[in-house]
Protein backbone atom coordinates (compact mmCIF):
# COMPACT_ATOMS: atom_id res chain seq x y z
CA UNK A 1 0.00 0.00 0.00
CA UNK A 2 1.75 3.15 -1.16
CA UNK A 3 -0.33 5.37 1.12
CA UNK A 4 1.81 5.25 4.22
CA UNK A 5 5.21 4.59 2.76
CA UNK A 6 5.51 7.18 0.07
CA UNK A 7 3.88 10.28 1.43
CA UNK A 8 5.61 11.20 4.68
CA UNK A 9 3.19 14.01 5.52
CA UNK A 10 0.23 11.73 4.80
CA UNK A 11 -1.47 13.96 2.23
CA UNK A 12 -3.80 12.08 -0.07
CA UNK A 13 -3.88 14.80 -2.70
CA UNK A 14 -1.37 17.60 -3.15
CA UNK A 15 -1.51 20.50 -5.58
CA UNK A 16 1.54 22.71 -5.54
CA UNK A 17 1.31 25.93 -7.53
CA UNK A 18 -0.51 24.16 -10.35
CA UNK A 19 -1.39 26.03 -13.54
CA UNK A 20 -3.14 25.01 -16.73
CA UNK A 21 -3.84 27.26 -19.69
CA UNK A 22 -6.03 26.46 -22.69
CA UNK A 23 -5.62 28.24 -25.97
CA UNK A 24 -8.87 29.34 -27.54
CA UNK A 25 -9.37 31.48 -30.65
CA UNK A 26 -10.11 34.40 -28.31
CA UNK A 27 -6.75 34.03 -26.58
CA UNK A 28 -5.37 32.03 -23.67
CA UNK A 29 -7.73 30.92 -20.89
CA UNK A 30 -6.06 30.44 -17.52
CA UNK A 31 -8.31 27.63 -16.32
CA UNK A 32 -6.17 26.90 -13.28
CA UNK A 33 -3.81 29.55 -12.06
CA UNK A 34 -1.35 28.73 -9.29
CA UNK A 35 -3.58 26.41 -7.27
CA UNK A 36 -2.10 25.01 -4.05
CA UNK A 37 -3.98 22.68 -1.73
CA UNK A 38 -3.52 19.47 0.24
CA UNK A 39 -6.17 16.95 1.28
CA UNK A 40 -5.69 14.82 4.38
CA UNK A 41 -6.97 11.27 4.72
CA UNK A 42 -10.44 10.73 6.11
CA UNK A 43 -11.80 14.13 5.20
CA UNK A 44 -14.96 14.78 3.24
CA UNK A 45 -14.21 17.79 1.10
CA UNK A 46 -16.57 19.81 -1.07
CA UNK A 47 -15.01 21.46 -4.08
CA UNK A 48 -16.98 24.54 -5.05
CA UNK A 49 -16.69 27.23 -7.65
CA UNK A 50 -18.85 28.98 -10.25
CA UNK A 51 -19.02 27.56 -13.78
CA UNK A 52 -15.67 27.98 -15.47
CA UNK A 53 -13.83 28.35 -12.15
CA UNK A 54 -11.52 25.47 -13.04
CA UNK A 55 -13.13 22.66 -11.03
CA UNK A 56 -13.26 20.07 -13.80
CA UNK A 57 -9.81 21.04 -15.07
CA UNK A 58 -8.45 20.57 -11.54
CA UNK A 59 -10.16 17.21 -11.11
CA UNK A 60 -8.86 16.06 -14.50
CA UNK A 61 -5.30 16.92 -13.47
CA UNK A 62 -5.85 15.27 -10.11
CA UNK A 63 -6.86 12.05 -11.86
CA UNK A 64 -4.02 12.26 -14.37
CA UNK A 65 -6.38 12.73 -17.33
CA UNK A 66 -4.53 15.91 -18.23
CA UNK A 67 -1.16 17.34 -17.29
CA UNK A 68 -0.52 20.68 -15.60
CA UNK A 69 1.52 23.22 -17.58
CA UNK A 70 3.46 23.94 -14.42
CA UNK A 71 3.43 22.95 -10.78
CA UNK A 72 3.07 19.55 -9.17
CA UNK A 73 0.10 17.25 -8.62
CA UNK A 74 0.60 14.22 -6.40
CA UNK A 75 -1.75 11.42 -5.30
CA UNK A 76 -0.59 9.46 -2.26
CA UNK A 77 2.81 11.01 -2.82
CA UNK A 78 3.18 9.60 -6.33
CA UNK A 79 1.65 10.04 -9.75
CA UNK A 80 -2.04 9.62 -10.48
CA UNK A 81 -1.28 6.72 -12.83
CA UNK A 82 0.47 4.75 -10.09
CA UNK A 83 -2.25 5.46 -7.54
CA UNK A 84 -4.95 4.39 -10.02
CA UNK A 85 -3.05 1.24 -10.95
CA UNK A 86 -2.97 0.24 -7.28
CA UNK A 87 -6.71 0.82 -6.93
CA UNK A 88 -6.30 3.85 -4.66
CA UNK A 89 -8.85 5.97 -6.50
CA UNK A 90 -12.55 5.48 -7.22
CA UNK A 91 -13.93 8.18 -9.46
CA UNK A 92 -17.23 9.30 -10.86
CA UNK A 93 -16.75 11.69 -13.74
CA UNK A 94 -19.32 14.16 -14.95
CA UNK A 95 -18.35 13.33 -18.51
CA UNK A 96 -17.87 9.64 -17.78
CA UNK A 97 -19.39 7.22 -20.22
CA UNK A 98 -21.03 3.88 -19.70
CA UNK A 99 -21.09 0.88 -22.01
CA UNK A 100 -23.95 0.17 -24.40
CA UNK A 101 -25.49 -3.28 -24.86
CA UNK A 102 -24.61 -4.46 -21.34
CA UNK A 103 -26.67 -4.88 -18.17
CA UNK A 104 -26.08 -2.93 -14.99
CA UNK A 105 -24.69 -6.04 -13.31
CA UNK A 106 -22.25 -6.73 -16.18
CA UNK A 107 -21.07 -3.14 -16.12
CA UNK A 108 -20.44 -3.16 -12.36
CA UNK A 109 -18.87 -6.65 -12.50
CA UNK A 110 -16.44 -5.41 -15.13
CA UNK A 111 -15.49 -2.55 -12.84
CA UNK A 112 -14.91 -4.99 -9.99
CA UNK A 113 -12.50 -6.93 -12.23
CA UNK A 114 -10.69 -3.73 -13.17
CA UNK A 115 -9.84 -2.95 -9.53
CA UNK A 116 -7.44 -4.96 -7.38
CA UNK A 117 -9.51 -5.14 -4.15
CA UNK A 118 -13.19 -4.92 -5.04
CA UNK A 119 -16.11 -5.22 -2.64
CA UNK A 120 -18.77 -7.79 -3.65
CA UNK A 121 -20.83 -6.66 -6.66
CA UNK A 122 -24.10 -7.27 -4.80
CA UNK A 123 -22.96 -4.90 -2.03
CA UNK A 124 -22.08 -2.14 -4.47
CA UNK A 125 -25.43 -2.51 -6.24
CA UNK A 126 -27.26 -2.34 -2.94
CA UNK A 127 -25.34 0.67 -1.66
CA UNK A 128 -25.96 2.55 -4.88
CA UNK A 129 -29.66 1.61 -4.65
CA UNK A 130 -29.66 -0.15 -8.02
CA UNK A 131 -30.11 -3.80 -6.98
CA UNK A 132 -33.56 -3.75 -8.64
CA UNK A 133 -32.03 -2.46 -11.88
CA UNK A 134 -29.29 -5.12 -12.08
CA UNK A 135 -30.66 -6.90 -15.16
CA UNK A 136 -31.64 -3.77 -17.09
CA UNK A 137 -29.56 -2.49 -20.00
CA UNK A 138 -27.38 0.42 -18.96
CA UNK A 139 -28.17 2.45 -22.08
CA UNK A 140 -31.92 2.17 -21.41
CA UNK A 141 -31.73 3.84 -17.97
CA UNK A 142 -32.66 7.41 -17.08
CA UNK A 143 -29.95 9.98 -16.36
CA UNK A 144 -30.43 9.70 -12.60
CA UNK A 145 -30.27 5.90 -12.74
CA UNK A 146 -27.07 6.06 -14.79
CA UNK A 147 -25.61 8.37 -12.13
CA UNK A 148 -26.27 5.63 -9.59
CA UNK A 149 -24.52 3.05 -11.78
CA UNK A 150 -21.53 5.39 -11.93
CA UNK A 151 -21.72 5.70 -8.18
CA UNK A 152 -21.58 1.91 -7.77
CA UNK A 153 -18.50 1.95 -10.02
CA UNK A 154 -16.87 4.65 -7.89
CA UNK A 155 -17.23 2.66 -4.65
CA UNK A 156 -16.65 -0.90 -5.89
CA UNK A 157 -12.86 -0.63 -5.75
CA UNK A 158 -12.96 0.07 -1.99
CA UNK A 159 -10.44 2.81 -2.76
CA UNK A 160 -9.12 5.14 -0.04
CA UNK A 161 -9.82 8.19 -2.22
CA UNK A 162 -13.20 8.75 -3.85
CA UNK A 163 -13.54 11.59 -6.34
CA UNK A 164 -17.02 12.63 -7.44
CA UNK A 165 -17.76 15.29 -10.04
CA UNK A 166 -21.34 16.58 -9.66
CA UNK A 167 -22.45 13.20 -8.28
CA UNK A 168 -26.13 13.89 -7.59
CA UNK A 169 -27.07 15.79 -10.72
CA UNK A 170 -30.26 14.25 -12.09
CA UNK A 171 -31.03 12.22 -8.94
CA UNK A 172 -34.35 12.61 -7.17
CA UNK A 173 -34.52 13.57 -3.50
CA UNK A 174 -34.80 10.01 -2.22
CA UNK A 175 -31.76 8.78 -4.15
CA UNK A 176 -29.80 11.84 -3.25
CA UNK A 177 -30.36 11.03 0.43
CA UNK A 178 -29.40 7.38 -0.08
CA UNK A 179 -26.31 8.54 -1.92
CA UNK A 180 -25.15 10.77 0.90
CA UNK A 181 -25.96 8.16 3.53
CA UNK A 182 -23.59 5.78 1.71
CA UNK A 183 -20.96 8.48 1.32
CA UNK A 184 -21.11 9.14 5.06
CA UNK A 185 -20.41 5.43 5.69
CA UNK A 186 -17.39 5.64 3.38
CA UNK A 187 -16.10 8.68 5.23
CA UNK A 188 -16.68 6.85 8.50
CA UNK A 189 -14.47 4.02 7.20
CA UNK A 190 -11.68 6.58 6.92
CA UNK A 191 -11.92 7.17 3.20
CA UNK A 192 -11.22 10.56 1.72
CA UNK A 193 -14.15 11.85 -0.30
CA UNK A 194 -13.71 14.81 -2.63
CA UNK A 195 -16.80 16.03 -4.42
CA UNK A 196 -17.62 18.91 -6.71
CA UNK A 197 -21.23 20.01 -6.58
CA UNK A 198 -23.71 22.64 -7.63
CA UNK A 199 -25.94 21.96 -4.65
CA UNK A 200 -24.47 24.11 -1.93
CA UNK A 201 -26.73 22.69 0.75
CA UNK A 202 -25.04 19.32 0.13
CA UNK A 203 -21.65 20.86 0.74
CA UNK A 204 -23.03 22.56 3.85
CA UNK A 205 -24.46 19.32 5.25
CA UNK A 206 -21.89 16.71 4.27
CA UNK A 207 -18.49 18.32 3.93
CA UNK A 208 -16.13 18.80 6.84
CA UNK A 209 -14.12 21.05 4.65
CA UNK A 210 -15.08 23.33 1.80
CA UNK A 211 -12.66 24.52 -0.84
CA UNK A 212 -13.84 27.37 -3.02
CA UNK A 213 -12.01 28.22 -6.21
CA UNK A 214 -12.66 31.08 -8.59
CA UNK A 215 -10.85 31.99 -11.79
CA UNK A 216 -8.50 29.06 -11.27
CA UNK A 217 -7.31 30.22 -7.86
CA UNK A 218 -8.03 29.15 -4.29
CA UNK A 219 -10.53 31.58 -2.81
CA UNK A 220 -11.51 30.04 0.49
CA UNK A 221 -10.63 26.89 2.40
CA UNK A 222 -12.16 25.85 5.69
CA UNK A 223 -15.22 24.38 7.34
CA UNK A 224 -18.59 25.53 6.04
CA UNK A 225 -19.11 27.69 9.13
CA UNK A 226 -15.67 29.29 8.77
CA UNK A 227 -16.45 30.14 5.18
CA UNK A 228 -19.81 31.58 6.11
CA UNK A 229 -18.12 33.68 8.79
CA UNK A 230 -15.40 34.92 6.47
CA UNK A 231 -18.01 35.87 3.92
CA UNK A 232 -19.90 37.94 6.45
CA UNK A 233 -22.62 35.47 6.45
CA UNK A 234 -24.92 36.77 9.18
CA UNK A 235 -27.75 39.13 8.53
CA UNK A 236 -28.54 41.67 11.26
CA UNK A 237 -31.78 43.55 10.72
CA UNK A 238 -33.62 46.07 12.86
CA UNK A 239 -35.89 49.09 12.75
CA UNK A 240 -34.21 52.44 13.48
CA UNK A 241 -35.99 55.55 12.20
CA UNK A 242 -33.85 58.50 11.22
CA UNK A 243 -30.41 56.87 11.49
CA UNK A 244 -27.85 58.34 9.12
CA UNK A 245 -26.10 56.22 6.53
CA UNK A 246 -22.71 57.46 7.74
CA UNK A 247 -23.38 55.99 11.19
CA UNK A 248 -24.18 52.58 9.73
CA UNK A 249 -21.13 52.57 7.49
CA UNK A 250 -18.85 53.22 10.47
CA UNK A 251 -19.95 49.97 12.16
CA UNK A 252 -17.30 47.22 12.45
CA UNK A 253 -17.26 43.90 10.51
CA UNK A 254 -19.71 45.23 7.97
CA UNK A 255 -20.00 43.57 4.56
CA UNK A 256 -23.12 45.04 3.07
CA UNK A 257 -25.76 47.64 3.98
CA UNK A 258 -29.35 47.69 2.76
CA UNK A 259 -32.08 50.16 3.78
CA UNK A 260 -35.78 50.21 3.23
CA UNK A 261 -37.25 53.30 4.91
CA UNK A 262 -36.89 52.58 8.66
CA UNK A 263 -35.76 48.99 8.24
CA UNK A 264 -32.00 48.38 8.10
CA UNK A 265 -30.47 45.09 6.94
CA UNK A 266 -26.75 44.60 7.51
CA UNK A 267 -24.59 41.71 6.36
CA UNK A 268 -21.81 41.25 8.88
CA UNK A 269 -19.00 38.83 9.60
CA UNK A 270 -19.46 39.34 13.35
CA UNK A 271 -23.03 40.20 14.21
CA UNK A 272 -22.31 40.58 17.93
CA UNK A 273 -19.54 43.16 17.43
CA UNK A 274 -21.60 45.10 14.92
CA UNK A 275 -24.64 45.19 17.18
CA UNK A 276 -22.65 46.18 20.30
CA UNK A 277 -21.01 49.03 18.41
CA UNK A 278 -24.41 50.34 17.38
CA UNK A 279 -25.68 50.14 20.98
CA UNK A 280 -22.47 51.75 22.31
CA UNK A 281 -23.02 54.63 19.93
CA UNK A 282 -26.21 55.29 21.85
CA UNK A 283 -28.76 53.91 19.40
CA UNK A 284 -31.65 51.72 20.48
CA UNK A 285 -32.85 49.75 17.48
CA UNK A 286 -36.16 47.85 17.63
CA UNK A 287 -37.20 44.43 16.28
CA UNK A 288 -33.62 43.09 16.19
CA UNK A 289 -33.19 39.90 14.22
CA UNK A 290 -29.98 37.99 13.62
CA UNK A 291 -30.12 35.39 10.91
CA UNK A 292 -27.42 32.98 9.80
CA UNK A 293 -26.97 32.86 6.05
CA UNK A 294 -26.47 29.60 4.20
CA UNK A 295 -23.34 28.52 2.44
CA UNK A 296 -24.97 29.50 -0.82
CA UNK A 297 -25.15 33.21 0.10
CA UNK A 298 -21.64 33.02 1.52
CA UNK A 299 -20.41 31.43 -1.69
CA UNK A 300 -22.13 34.07 -3.83
CA UNK A 301 -20.76 36.83 -1.62
CA UNK A 302 -17.12 35.75 -1.75
CA UNK A 303 -17.08 34.94 -5.47
CA UNK A 304 -18.85 38.23 -6.29
CA UNK A 305 -16.34 40.10 -4.15
CA UNK A 306 -13.46 38.33 -5.90
CA UNK A 307 -14.90 39.09 -9.32
CA UNK A 308 -15.39 42.80 -8.49
CA UNK A 309 -11.89 42.95 -7.14
CA UNK A 310 -10.63 41.43 -10.38
CA UNK A 311 -12.55 44.00 -12.41
CA UNK A 312 -11.08 46.86 -10.37
CA UNK A 313 -7.60 45.49 -10.85
CA UNK A 314 -8.17 45.21 -14.55
CA UNK A 315 -9.52 48.78 -14.69
CA UNK A 316 -6.36 50.09 -13.10
Amino acid sequence: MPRDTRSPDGAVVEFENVSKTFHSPKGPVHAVNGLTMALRPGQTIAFLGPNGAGKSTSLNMLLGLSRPDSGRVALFGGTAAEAIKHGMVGAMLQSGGLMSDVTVREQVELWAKLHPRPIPVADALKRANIADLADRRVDKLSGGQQQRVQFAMAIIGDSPLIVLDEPTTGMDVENRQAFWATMRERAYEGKTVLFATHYLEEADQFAERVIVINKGRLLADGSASEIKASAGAKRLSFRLPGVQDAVLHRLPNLVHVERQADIVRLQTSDSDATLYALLDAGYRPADIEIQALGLEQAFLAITAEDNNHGTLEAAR
Partner: protein
Amino acid sequence: MNATLTLTKLDVLRVLRNGRYLIFAIAMPAALYLIIGKQNTQADGVDFKAYYMLAMATYGAFAGALMNNSIRIATERKSGWTRQLRLTSLPGWGYVFAKVVTSLATTIPSVLVVFGIGAFLNHVEMPAWKWVANAVILWLVSMTFVSLAVAIGYRFDPETAQPAVMLTFFPMAILGGLWFPLGGTLEKIGKWFPTYQAHKLGTDILATGKISATSIGVVAAWGVLFALLAVASYRSAKEQ
Protein backbone atom coordinates in the same frame (compact mmCIF):
# COMPACT_ATOMS: atom_id res chain seq x y z
CA MET B 1 -3.95 -9.17 -18.39
CA ASN B 2 -6.90 -10.55 -16.47
CA ALA B 3 -8.55 -7.13 -16.60
CA THR B 4 -7.99 -6.86 -20.34
CA LEU B 5 -9.46 -10.30 -20.98
CA THR B 6 -12.54 -9.47 -18.93
CA LEU B 7 -13.11 -6.32 -20.96
CA THR B 8 -12.55 -8.27 -24.19
CA LYS B 9 -15.07 -10.93 -23.24
CA LEU B 10 -17.70 -8.33 -22.47
CA ASP B 11 -16.91 -6.42 -25.67
CA VAL B 12 -17.46 -9.57 -27.77
CA LEU B 13 -20.74 -10.26 -25.99
CA ARG B 14 -21.92 -6.71 -26.66
CA VAL B 15 -21.28 -6.95 -30.38
CA LEU B 16 -23.19 -10.23 -30.63
CA ARG B 17 -26.15 -8.50 -28.96
CA ASN B 18 -26.02 -5.50 -31.25
CA GLY B 19 -28.68 -5.13 -33.93
CA ARG B 20 -26.49 -3.35 -36.46
CA TYR B 21 -23.91 -6.14 -36.34
CA LEU B 22 -26.54 -8.85 -36.69
CA ILE B 23 -28.10 -7.12 -39.71
CA PHE B 24 -25.04 -6.07 -41.67
CA ALA B 25 -22.60 -8.86 -40.87
CA ILE B 26 -24.90 -11.88 -40.51
CA ALA B 27 -28.47 -11.41 -41.74
CA MET B 28 -27.64 -9.46 -44.89
CA PRO B 29 -25.01 -11.79 -46.41
CA ALA B 30 -27.03 -14.85 -45.38
CA ALA B 31 -30.20 -13.45 -46.99
CA LEU B 32 -28.42 -12.36 -50.16
CA TYR B 33 -26.87 -15.79 -50.47
CA LEU B 34 -30.23 -17.51 -49.96
CA ILE B 35 -31.90 -15.28 -52.56
CA ILE B 36 -29.20 -15.01 -55.24
CA GLY B 37 -26.91 -17.98 -54.64
CA LYS B 38 -29.06 -20.82 -55.99
CA GLN B 39 -28.13 -20.52 -59.65
CA ASN B 40 -26.82 -23.48 -61.57
CA THR B 41 -24.20 -21.49 -63.49
CA GLN B 42 -20.46 -21.10 -63.33
CA ALA B 43 -18.31 -18.12 -62.40
CA ASP B 44 -14.51 -17.93 -62.35
CA GLY B 45 -14.28 -21.63 -62.99
CA VAL B 46 -16.40 -22.72 -60.01
CA ASP B 47 -20.10 -23.36 -59.38
CA PHE B 48 -21.97 -20.12 -58.77
CA LYS B 49 -23.34 -21.53 -55.50
CA ALA B 50 -19.78 -21.86 -54.19
CA TYR B 51 -18.64 -18.63 -55.84
CA TYR B 52 -21.38 -16.61 -54.17
CA MET B 53 -20.96 -18.41 -50.87
CA LEU B 54 -17.32 -17.30 -50.76
CA ALA B 55 -18.31 -13.77 -51.84
CA MET B 56 -20.90 -13.43 -49.09
CA ALA B 57 -18.63 -14.98 -46.47
CA THR B 58 -15.95 -12.45 -47.44
CA TYR B 59 -18.47 -9.62 -47.31
CA GLY B 60 -19.81 -10.75 -43.92
CA ALA B 61 -16.37 -11.24 -42.39
CA PHE B 62 -15.20 -7.79 -43.49
CA ALA B 63 -18.45 -6.12 -42.40
CA GLY B 64 -18.19 -7.87 -39.03
CA ALA B 65 -14.62 -6.69 -38.57
CA LEU B 66 -15.26 -3.14 -39.70
CA MET B 67 -18.74 -1.85 -39.00
CA ASN B 68 -19.30 -2.37 -35.35
CA ASN B 69 -15.93 -1.50 -33.95
CA SER B 70 -15.26 1.63 -35.98
CA ILE B 71 -18.49 3.24 -34.83
CA ARG B 72 -18.11 1.91 -31.32
CA ILE B 73 -14.60 3.31 -30.87
CA ALA B 74 -15.75 6.72 -32.15
CA THR B 75 -18.79 6.68 -29.85
CA GLU B 76 -16.89 5.53 -26.79
CA ARG B 77 -14.22 8.15 -27.22
CA LYS B 78 -16.90 10.83 -27.40
CA SER B 79 -19.05 9.53 -24.54
CA GLY B 80 -16.17 9.50 -22.08
CA TRP B 81 -16.04 5.71 -21.77
CA THR B 82 -12.37 5.58 -22.76
CA ARG B 83 -11.62 8.28 -20.14
CA GLN B 84 -13.51 6.26 -17.57
CA LEU B 85 -11.35 3.23 -18.39
CA ARG B 86 -8.24 5.29 -17.73
CA LEU B 87 -9.36 5.45 -14.10
CA THR B 88 -8.92 1.70 -13.65
CA SER B 89 -6.03 -0.72 -13.51
CA LEU B 90 -6.58 -1.54 -17.21
CA PRO B 91 -3.30 -1.01 -19.08
CA GLY B 92 -3.21 1.76 -21.71
CA TRP B 93 -3.26 -0.69 -24.61
CA GLY B 94 -6.05 -2.76 -23.06
CA TYR B 95 -8.91 -0.93 -24.76
CA VAL B 96 -7.61 -1.18 -28.31
CA PHE B 97 -6.50 -4.76 -27.68
CA ALA B 98 -10.05 -5.66 -26.65
CA LYS B 99 -11.42 -3.99 -29.78
CA VAL B 100 -9.01 -5.82 -32.11
CA VAL B 101 -9.75 -9.20 -30.54
CA THR B 102 -13.46 -8.45 -30.69
CA SER B 103 -13.22 -7.63 -34.38
CA LEU B 104 -11.34 -10.85 -35.02
CA ALA B 105 -13.88 -12.84 -33.02
CA THR B 106 -16.93 -11.32 -34.63
CA THR B 107 -15.84 -12.18 -38.16
CA ILE B 108 -16.22 -15.87 -37.32
CA PRO B 109 -20.04 -16.13 -37.01
CA SER B 110 -20.52 -14.40 -40.39
CA VAL B 111 -18.29 -16.95 -42.11
CA LEU B 112 -19.82 -19.92 -40.31
CA VAL B 113 -23.42 -18.91 -41.08
CA VAL B 114 -22.79 -18.43 -44.81
CA PHE B 115 -20.67 -21.60 -45.05
CA GLY B 116 -23.41 -23.47 -43.17
CA ILE B 117 -26.04 -22.35 -45.66
CA GLY B 118 -23.68 -23.36 -48.49
CA ALA B 119 -22.98 -26.81 -47.11
CA PHE B 120 -26.44 -27.77 -45.85
CA LEU B 121 -28.94 -25.86 -48.00
CA ASN B 122 -27.15 -25.16 -51.27
CA HIS B 123 -25.16 -28.42 -51.34
CA VAL B 124 -21.77 -26.85 -51.98
CA GLU B 125 -19.18 -29.59 -51.92
CA MET B 126 -15.43 -29.45 -51.40
CA PRO B 127 -12.87 -31.51 -49.47
CA ALA B 128 -12.76 -30.86 -45.73
CA TRP B 129 -9.31 -29.23 -45.89
CA LYS B 130 -10.62 -26.68 -48.40
CA TRP B 131 -13.47 -25.68 -46.08
CA VAL B 132 -10.98 -25.22 -43.28
CA ALA B 133 -8.41 -23.42 -45.45
CA ASN B 134 -11.05 -21.04 -46.78
CA ALA B 135 -12.36 -20.22 -43.31
CA VAL B 136 -8.87 -19.65 -41.91
CA ILE B 137 -7.77 -17.51 -44.85
CA LEU B 138 -10.90 -15.36 -44.61
CA TRP B 139 -10.31 -14.89 -40.94
CA LEU B 140 -6.69 -13.88 -41.52
CA VAL B 141 -7.41 -11.42 -44.35
CA SER B 142 -10.20 -9.77 -42.34
CA MET B 143 -7.41 -8.37 -40.14
CA THR B 144 -7.08 -5.79 -42.90
CA PHE B 145 -10.50 -4.45 -42.00
CA VAL B 146 -9.85 -4.74 -38.29
CA SER B 147 -7.11 -2.15 -38.84
CA LEU B 148 -9.43 0.02 -40.91
CA ALA B 149 -11.97 -0.09 -38.07
CA VAL B 150 -9.38 1.23 -35.62
CA ALA B 151 -8.26 3.88 -38.15
CA ILE B 152 -11.81 5.16 -38.65
CA GLY B 153 -12.80 4.91 -34.98
CA TYR B 154 -9.91 7.07 -33.84
CA ARG B 155 -10.22 9.57 -36.68
CA PHE B 156 -13.95 10.29 -36.90
CA ASP B 157 -16.79 11.44 -34.63
CA PRO B 158 -19.71 9.11 -33.90
CA GLU B 159 -21.79 11.05 -36.45
CA THR B 160 -19.23 10.84 -39.25
CA ALA B 161 -17.85 7.37 -38.54
CA GLN B 162 -20.88 5.61 -40.02
CA PRO B 163 -20.77 7.50 -43.36
CA ALA B 164 -16.98 7.00 -43.42
CA VAL B 165 -17.50 3.24 -43.12
CA MET B 166 -20.22 3.16 -45.77
CA LEU B 167 -18.21 5.30 -48.19
CA THR B 168 -15.09 3.17 -47.92
CA PHE B 169 -16.57 -0.28 -47.51
CA PHE B 170 -19.55 -0.39 -49.91
CA PRO B 171 -17.58 0.79 -52.97
CA MET B 172 -14.88 -1.76 -52.12
CA ALA B 173 -17.47 -4.50 -51.71
CA ILE B 174 -19.21 -3.65 -55.00
CA LEU B 175 -16.06 -3.02 -57.08
CA GLY B 176 -14.52 -6.11 -55.55
CA GLY B 177 -17.40 -8.09 -57.07
CA LEU B 178 -18.73 -9.35 -53.74
CA TRP B 179 -22.37 -8.43 -54.35
CA PHE B 180 -22.41 -9.50 -58.01
CA PRO B 181 -19.67 -10.53 -60.46
CA LEU B 182 -18.29 -7.68 -62.53
CA GLY B 183 -16.68 -7.65 -65.95
CA GLY B 184 -14.73 -5.30 -68.22
CA THR B 185 -13.29 -2.05 -66.91
CA LEU B 186 -14.99 -2.33 -63.52
CA GLU B 187 -13.37 -5.69 -62.91
CA LYS B 188 -9.99 -4.28 -63.96
CA ILE B 189 -10.37 -1.57 -61.32
CA GLY B 190 -11.83 -4.00 -58.82
CA LYS B 191 -8.78 -6.27 -59.00
CA TRP B 192 -6.83 -3.71 -57.06
CA PHE B 193 -9.07 -3.98 -54.03
CA PRO B 194 -8.57 -6.37 -51.10
CA THR B 195 -12.23 -7.40 -51.34
CA TYR B 196 -11.71 -8.80 -54.84
CA GLN B 197 -8.45 -10.53 -54.02
CA ALA B 198 -9.70 -11.98 -50.72
CA HIS B 199 -12.60 -13.54 -52.61
CA LYS B 200 -10.23 -14.77 -55.30
CA LEU B 201 -8.09 -16.51 -52.69
CA GLY B 202 -11.20 -18.56 -51.87
CA THR B 203 -12.23 -19.38 -55.43
CA ASP B 204 -8.63 -20.25 -56.34
CA ILE B 205 -8.41 -22.72 -53.50
CA LEU B 206 -11.69 -24.25 -54.52
CA ALA B 207 -10.76 -24.48 -58.22
CA THR B 208 -7.04 -25.29 -58.12
CA GLY B 209 -6.03 -25.79 -54.49
CA LYS B 210 -3.46 -23.00 -54.88
CA ILE B 211 -3.32 -19.30 -54.15
CA SER B 212 -1.60 -16.62 -56.19
CA ALA B 213 1.14 -14.27 -55.08
CA THR B 214 -0.76 -11.36 -56.65
CA SER B 215 -3.77 -11.93 -54.40
CA ILE B 216 -1.61 -12.18 -51.29
CA GLY B 217 0.40 -9.12 -52.35
CA VAL B 218 -2.66 -6.91 -52.92
CA VAL B 219 -4.33 -7.94 -49.64
CA ALA B 220 -1.09 -7.52 -47.70
CA ALA B 221 -0.45 -4.08 -49.21
CA TRP B 222 -3.89 -2.87 -48.12
CA GLY B 223 -3.33 -4.50 -44.75
CA VAL B 224 -0.11 -2.52 -44.25
CA LEU B 225 -1.76 0.70 -45.45
CA PHE B 226 -4.72 0.33 -43.06
CA ALA B 227 -2.43 -0.64 -40.18
CA LEU B 228 -0.34 2.50 -40.73
CA LEU B 229 -3.52 4.61 -40.84
CA ALA B 230 -4.70 2.93 -37.63
CA VAL B 231 -1.45 3.74 -35.83
CA ALA B 232 -1.52 7.34 -37.10
CA SER B 233 -5.16 7.88 -36.04
CA TYR B 234 -4.58 6.26 -32.68
CA ARG B 235 -1.54 8.42 -31.98
CA SER B 236 -3.10 11.70 -33.01
CA ALA B 237 -6.22 10.93 -30.96
CA LYS B 238 -4.06 10.16 -27.90
CA GLU B 239 -2.25 13.47 -28.19
CA GLN B 240 -5.44 15.52 -28.03
